[in-house]
């Protein structure tokens, strides 16, 4: 992202709000591009909200385990750059359905926030089952590479930076995901 683009994104008070799931958040708080956290590139172009459960999984458990990415996430929460929301259970019938999928408490909290927070545009997750459940609930789910592609498509990030971000996160993603996005950014797919 160029200096100008970063400033433009920061100045934009109405930046779109995305919910972030734990795995994608850890990846973004762990990997860097040119000495800068991927998470900061993300925060240049979007607002992030996480559930209380994701906070526990990434920050509290991360601190307990001595993982530096937990510190990175906490600093950005403390600075007000990442919001943490508490969600309540939905109808008993719906909760039963979530149980039938085998979803855990943290998964269910992500679904609840996605479906109850009107200002959350989409949820970024690399969890296939959660992606499917969110999609089936009519909520937009994005894999992390899709989020980067979207930032490029919306001119919030230039294509070269988008490609570099994809390459930076490639070690943690299943083969094919990053290559697919790179192909689309290059306009060859």
């Amino acid at each position: 992202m160029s200096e100008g683009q970063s400033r433009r994104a920061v100045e934009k008070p109405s930046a779109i709000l995305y919910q972030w799931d734990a795995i994608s958040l850890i990846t973004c708080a762990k990997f860097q591009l040119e000495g800068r956290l991927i998470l900061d590139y993300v925060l240049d172009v979007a607002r992030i909200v996480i559930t209380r459960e994701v906070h526990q999984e990434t920050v509290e458990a991360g601190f307990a385990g001595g993982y530096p990415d937990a510190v990175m996430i906490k600093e950005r929460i403390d600075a007000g750059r990442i919001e943490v929301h508490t969600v309540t259970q939905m109808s008993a019938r719906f909760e039963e359905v979530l149980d039938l999928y085998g979803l855990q408490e943290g998964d269910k909290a992500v679904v609840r926030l996605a479906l109850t927070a009107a200002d959350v545009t989409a949820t970024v997750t690399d969890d296939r089952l959660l992606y499917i459940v969110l999609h089936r609930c009519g909520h937009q789910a994005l894999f992390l590479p899709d989020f980067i592609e979207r930032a490029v498509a919306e001119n919030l990030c230039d294509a070269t930076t988008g490609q570099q971000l994809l390459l930076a996160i490639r070690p943690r993603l299943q083969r094919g995901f990053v290559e697919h996005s790179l192909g689309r950014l290059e306009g060859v797919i």
Partner: protein
Amino acid sequence: MAVRVETVLDDRIAQYVNRVKAQHHATEAAVVQELVEAGYAEVVRQLHARYQRGELSFRAVAAELGLSVRELYDLFEKMGLPT
């Protein structure tokens, strides 16, 4: 945290342990530990495959292994398995 366990091995496994022990001049405990670790790695790989197919969520895999989400992320990374 390491845990000491006493167990009875099946005949075939005992024969294998004795053969490897003699071949590599290793202790019985070391051979059994290696077997247990290989079994654990296989369990993790199988759960990872189910996660990748969308049969289990990442958190369900973590719960199955008795790990936190952050610990599982670390384990997958160490084993070269994508998240």
